[in-house]
């Protein structure tokens, strides 16, 4: 039986000496979703992924991946049989040929799908006898994706998958990822490319300075998130906007801009009650929310 959530973490923390790379984060990833894991460089995305994959131990907190505890080596190993990972640098053994690497990877997974391998080999036009070190970054990404998808993994984790790729390769990758969920694979990927995330993600997690700054679904974004832009004729009282429904707000001259989840009209009325001379409500895009969130926490 597939669990409701393929990833569940609670209070997950990782410290390196005095540096707090990940600070008490709690989130879950629904089965069958495409979840975008956003954050600036150094936000803690890769550290979180390393903890999920059992590569490093959390300093505190707990988590499960496909029902297996991430900090128990034996359980993590079992989970990794059903998880595929594509790293940011697509670091594959440079001394192996494409064919050798496919054969090597295949030997670890009993549920390897030869027909998927053959289909992807054709689609990606990978040269079987060429050494990995001789492949372009785009080709390496395709190979990494083939190694990941040919197992029909329950969970596919990607760390900055489009980093360094040309637009055509990015399009290929996004199409492959979009098609994954139809095969029953949950996709969890970190990225800086907000337009790409917006295209394919169902769920969004925003990490900032090791903390989970926001978590929402794309449906929620479209239906519930609005900007309320209130203009005042004198210095506005920004603290008055710390009310339920306001995710965060900031003052820009005589204007207060608030990101509202839920009833934006109520917040607009509140602004008018405070003496706003103009109030505008506008839909929020992922880019705006992300930039506002990481700026807000800076």
């Amino acid at each position, binding site marked *: 039986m597939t669990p409701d959530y393929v990833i569940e973490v609670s209070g997950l923390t990782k410290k*390196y000496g005095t*540096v707090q*790379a990940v600070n008490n984060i709690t989130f879950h990833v629904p089965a069958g979703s495409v979840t975008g894991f956003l954050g600036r460089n*150094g936000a*803690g*995305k*890769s*550290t979180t992924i*390393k903890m999920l*994959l*059992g*590569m*490093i131990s959390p300093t505190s907190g707990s988590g499960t991946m496909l029902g297996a505890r991430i900090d128990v*080596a034996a359980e993590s*190993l*079992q989970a*990794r*049989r059903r*998880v595929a*990972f594509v*790293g940011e*640098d697509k*670091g*594959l*053994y*440079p*001394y*192996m040929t494409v064919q*050798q690497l496919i*054969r*090597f*990877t295949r*030997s*670890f*997974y009993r549920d390897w799908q030869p027909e998927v391998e053959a289909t992807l080999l054709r689609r990606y036009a990978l040269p079987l006898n060429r050494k990995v070190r001789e492949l372009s970054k785009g080709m390496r990404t395709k190979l*990494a994706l083939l190694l990941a998808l040919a197992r029909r993994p329950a969970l596919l984790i990607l*760390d900055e998958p489009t980093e360094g790729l040309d637009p055509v390769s990015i399009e290929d990758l996004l199409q492959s990822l979009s098609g994954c969920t139809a095969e029953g694979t949950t996709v969890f990927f970190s990225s800086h490319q907000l337009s790409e995330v917006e295209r394919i993600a169902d769920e969004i997690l925003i990490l900032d300075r090791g903390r989970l700054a926001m978590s929402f679904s794309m449906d929620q974004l479209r239906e519930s998130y609005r900007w309320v832009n209130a203009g005042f004729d004198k210095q506005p009282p920004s603290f008055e906007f710390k009310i339920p429904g306001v995710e965060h707000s900031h003052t820009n001259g005589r204007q207060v801009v608030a990101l509202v989840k839920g009833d934006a009209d109520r917040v607009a009325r509140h602004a008018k009650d405070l003496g706003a001379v103009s109030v505008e409500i506008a839909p929020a895009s992922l880019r705006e929310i992300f930039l506002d969130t990481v700026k807000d926490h800076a």
Partner: protein
Amino acid sequence: MLFYKAWLESRSRFFIGLIVIAALCCVFVLFHELFRSRMQTTRGTLPYQDYIYLRVYGGFVRGIFLLVAIVLGLGGLNAERGRNTLMFTLALPVRRGYLLATRAMTGLAEVATLALLPALLIPWLSAGAGQVYPAFQSWNFFVLWVAIGWALFASAFLASCVFENDYSALTAALIAFYIYPLAVARTPFLRPYPLHIHYIMNGTGMPYFDPQTHSFVGPLPWAILGGVLLVSVALIYLASQLPVRMDRS
């Protein structure tokens, strides 16, 4: 397939070592007359068995073998970090201990193969060159070379798990290679014990070896070799207990 990976990673170093050792054995045997003519003793021409000892089993080839054993111990997960392949390896559904064990076993097999090379080549080439080198001498040296080669491989293996790059690990292993025997030789209370790995390997001052004839005169020191083997296993086990250094994110 992890053995295959370990083999692909180390085969260049192994083949370089193999070619160098085989070439030196060939040169020293096939051109023995030329070299021996330059090594006159008070008794005349150096006997062939002494010559082989001074050039191969107790000399230059032995040093090359030990250096290759050290170089074969390098690599592993810390080196993979430098190649950006560490995360791919660690994401495989394999225990880290198994990753290390396959690399260790591959390296130990390669060291044993290199030690076997003179044991096979010297008697065979000697016959071709019209000389006789007793096979049992070669086999005894093979056993000593394997034991000490494994110990040096294990020390480099440990260094490769401690240090973040191959150069630091190689430096540390080479320092140990030179410092350890010196420390044993210069420490009065250690001197009486058979702790000097080079002496164990070439027989210097050992009861099983006659320095006059450069031949074995007694049974191999199995207890000492067992101790060396235990130390090797302990070093590899210690390496497996060290955490892999990951990048900070």
